[in-house]
C-alpha cells in the first residue's frame, strides 16, 4: 500500500436488484439489476481534492455511500488507509494486522472508527438536518457518539471551532437556533461543521452546492478549499457541474453510466479532454466571455437505462465518433499522458 493514497477503490461494483414481480416470474423473465456502479477504480492521495463528475444516475453518489459503508458493495474493494471497508460493511472481520489494526474490531466499532475518520456532506441542506435539533446539538452529536469529549467546556470549544471553521462566526450567535431559522448557505455550513467536528481525514462532499444559490456556491467551495489548506483534509467532491469542479479540485474523474471514462489532473482534463463524453461536457460548459465562440458538441438521446447497459463501449449509442468496433469491445484505459487516462477505443 502506498503511503500516498488514503483511499483506493478497486473494481467496485454496486448493483441494485430490480423488484421481481409475479408477472416477471410468470413470463420467466430473469432477475434484473441496476448497474449503479459497474467496475470503478481510482485512488485518492492524502490531502488531495478529487472531483467525481457525472450526470445524475452515473453512480457518483453510490460510490460515496459505499466508501462510508452506508451501502454494501456487490463486488470489489474499498481500501481506506489500507483497510477494506467493503469487508466491514458485509460484516466480515479481518483478525490480522498490527495492534492498531481496525480489522480487529467488531463490525460496529469498525464502522464507528471509519466514520470517525471519514465524513460526508450531503446534497440537500434543507433535508439533511434534523428539524428538532438545535445547531449546537447537531454539531455536538458526533462528538457524543464517538465519546470524544468528557465535559461541557470541551464540547463547547470543539463545536465553536467547527462552526467558526465553517464560516458561522460568531458561533454562539447560531448555535441556539433551529435549522429552519437559517438560510440554505448557512445550513450547508452547519452540515459541514457537523462533519468537521470529528476532524476527519476524508470528507466526501456529495454535490454540496447543487441546492444552493449560485451566489453562495463559490463561498462554500472556497470554504472546502480552505479546509484542505488548514487541516489537510482529503476531499472527494462529487458534482454534475464541471465549472464548480474546475474551480478548486486537483484531479477529476468523469463518470458515465457506472464507469469512469476519463481521469486526470483537472486542468488537463478541462483543457484537453480525451474521451468524447468529456469533450461534449466541456464544449457545453458556459464560459464567461460571450465573444468566444466554440464548436459545441451536443449529445443526442438520453443516458441509457442502467438495467440494460449497452454492449461494447457503453457510450457508443450517443457517441458522435462511434465506429463499428465500439459496439463490440469494451474499451480499456489508455494512458494519454502521465496520470491522465481515458477509456476510449479511438485513442
Amino acid at each position, binding site marked *: 500500500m502506498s503511503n500516498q493514497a488514503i483511499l483506493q477503490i478497486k473494481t467496485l461494483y454496486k448493483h441494485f436488484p430490480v423488484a421481481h414481480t409475479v408477472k416477471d416470474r410468470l413470463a420467466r423473465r430473469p432477475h434484473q439489476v441496476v448497474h449503479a456502479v459497474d467496475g470503478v477504480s481510482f485512488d485518492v492521495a492524502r490531502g488531495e481534492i478529487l472531483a467525481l463528475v457525472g450526470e445524475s444516475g452515473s453512480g457518483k453518489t453510490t460510490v460515496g455511500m459505499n466508501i462510508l459503508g452506508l451501502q454494501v458493495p456487490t463486488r470489489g474493494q474499498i481500501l481506506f488507509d489500507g483497510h477494506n471497508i467493503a469487508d466491514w460493511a458485509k460484516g466480515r472481520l479481518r483478525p490480522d494486522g498490527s495492534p492498531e489494526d481496525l480489522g480487529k474490531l467488531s463490525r460496529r466499532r469498525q464502522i464507528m472508527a471509519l466514520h470517525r475518520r471519514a465524513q460526508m456532506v450531503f446534497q440537500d441542506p434543507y*433535508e439533511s438536518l434534523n428539524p428538532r435539533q438545535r445547531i449546537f446539538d447537531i454539531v455536538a452529536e458526533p462528538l457524543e457518539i464517538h465519546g470524544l469529549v468528557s465535559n461541557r467546556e470541551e464540547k463547547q470549544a470543539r463545536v465553536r471551532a467547527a462552526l467558526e471553521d465553517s464560516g458561522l462566526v460568531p458561533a454562539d450567535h447560531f448555535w441556539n437556533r433551529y435549522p429552519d431559522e437559517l438560510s440554505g448557505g448557512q445550513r450547508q455550513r452547519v452540515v459541514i461543521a457537523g462533519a468537521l467536528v470529528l476532524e476527519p481525514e476524508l470528507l466526501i462532499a456529495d454535490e454540496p452546492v447543487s441546492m444552493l444559490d449560485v451566489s453562495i456556491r463559490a463561498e462554500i467551495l472556497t470554504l472546502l478549499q480552505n479546509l484542505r489548506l488548514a487541516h489537510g483534509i482529503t476531499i472527494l467532491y462529487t458534482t454534475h457541474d464541471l465549472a464548480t469542479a474546475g474551480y478548486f479540485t486537483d484531479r477529476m474523474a468523469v463518470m458515465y453510466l457506472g464507469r469512469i471514462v476519463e481521469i486526470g489532473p483537472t486542468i488537463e482534463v478541462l483543457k484537453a479532454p480525451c474521451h468524447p463524453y468529456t469533450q461534449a461536457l466541456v464544449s457545453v460548459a458556459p464560459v464567461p466571455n460571450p465573444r468566444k465562440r466554440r464548436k459545441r458538441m451536443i449529445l443526442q438521446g438520453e443516458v441509457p437505462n442502467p438495467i440494460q447497459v449497452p454492449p461494447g463501449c457503453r457510450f457508443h449509442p450517443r457517441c458522435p465518433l462511434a465506429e463499428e468496433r465500439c459496439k463490440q469491445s469494451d474499451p480499456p484505459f489508455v494512458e494519454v499522458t502521465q496520470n491522465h487516462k481515458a477509456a476510449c477505443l479511438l485513442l
Partner: protein
Amino acid sequence: MQRSDYLLRKIGFAIATLLVVVIFNFFLFRILPGDPVKLIIHSPRMTREAQERIRVTFGLDRPIWLDVEALKTGDLPRVFDTQFTAYVRNLLHGDLGISFATRRDVVDLLRERLWRTVVLIILGEVLAIFFGIALGMLAAWRRGSKLDTGILLWGLFTWAMPTFFFGIILILLTRGILPVGGMSTPGLRPDDGWVFWKDVGRHLILPTLTLTLLYMSEYMLIMRSSVVEVLSEDYILTAKAKGLSTFDIFRRHALKNSMLPMVTIIALTLGYTVGGAIQVETVFSWPGIGRLMFEAVQKRDYPVLQGSFLLLAVSVILANLLADLLYTFLDPRVKPD
C-alpha cells in the same frame, strides 16, 4: 407573535368553543321529541294536578328561552325567566340539575362515576400508547419482514372491529375465568380492603384489554407509517454517516420526529375516550360515565345527558388545547402565528 399571545389566543378560542357548546347543549335536548314528564310518571292514575306539580318542580312549565306571552303583556321581568336562563344561572353556580330518573344531583352523579371511567381509560390508554408505539416502531424497523406484515394485519383487523363485538368475543373466550361485568363482586365493599381492590382489579382486566387492543391498533399503524416516513429523511442518512448506531438513530432522531403525529392523535383520542368508553362500559356493565350516558338516553334523563355532554365537550376542548400547546414546544417549525 409571542408565545404568550399565542397561548392566550388558543385559550380564548377554547372558551369561545365552550360557550357555543353550552348553548347548543341546552337546545339539543329540547328539540328532541318526547316528553320527559311522561317518563317520570310511572302510574297512569296520577292526576293532572300532580303532573303539573312535577312540571313546576323541574321548571318545565316555563317557556324554553323567551316568554312570548310576557313580552306581549309587557311583563318584562318574566320575559327572560325561562328554562334557558335557569339553565345558565344554575350552570354558573355549578348546578347541573337533578336527574329525572334517580332524583339525584347530576354533579354528584358525574363525580361518582367519573373516576371509574378515568381509571379504566387511563389504564387502557397508557397500555395502548406504550404497546402501540413499541410495536409500531418495531414494525417500521423491520419493515417488509413477516413481523411487520403480522403487526400490520393485526392492526387493521382490530381497528376495523366494532368495540362491542370485540368485547363480546373476549367475554366468550375468557368465559368462567374472568368476571365479565360490573366493578366488583356483589357483597364486597371498600371496607373489605385488599380483598375488595383485588376483586376490582380482576373486574378491570377485560374492559381494559378491550380498550387497549382497540386504541393500540390505531397508535401502532400511525406510529409505523410515521417512523417509516421519518426513516426515509435525509437527516437519518446524515446521522448514519456520522456513525450513529441503529439504536441511537431511533433514540435521537427517529423517535422524537415521529412522535409529532402521535401527540395529536393521543391528545384527540384522550378527549373522546371519556365518552368513547360508552360501548365498553355498556358491554362490561362498568358503572362509569359511558354507561351513565347510555342509561340516560334510554330514560330520556335530560339533566344527566346535559351534564355528561358538557363534561365530554370540556374534555375534548381541553385535549385539543393541550395538543396545540404541546406542538409549539415539540416542533420548532410550528411558528405561533
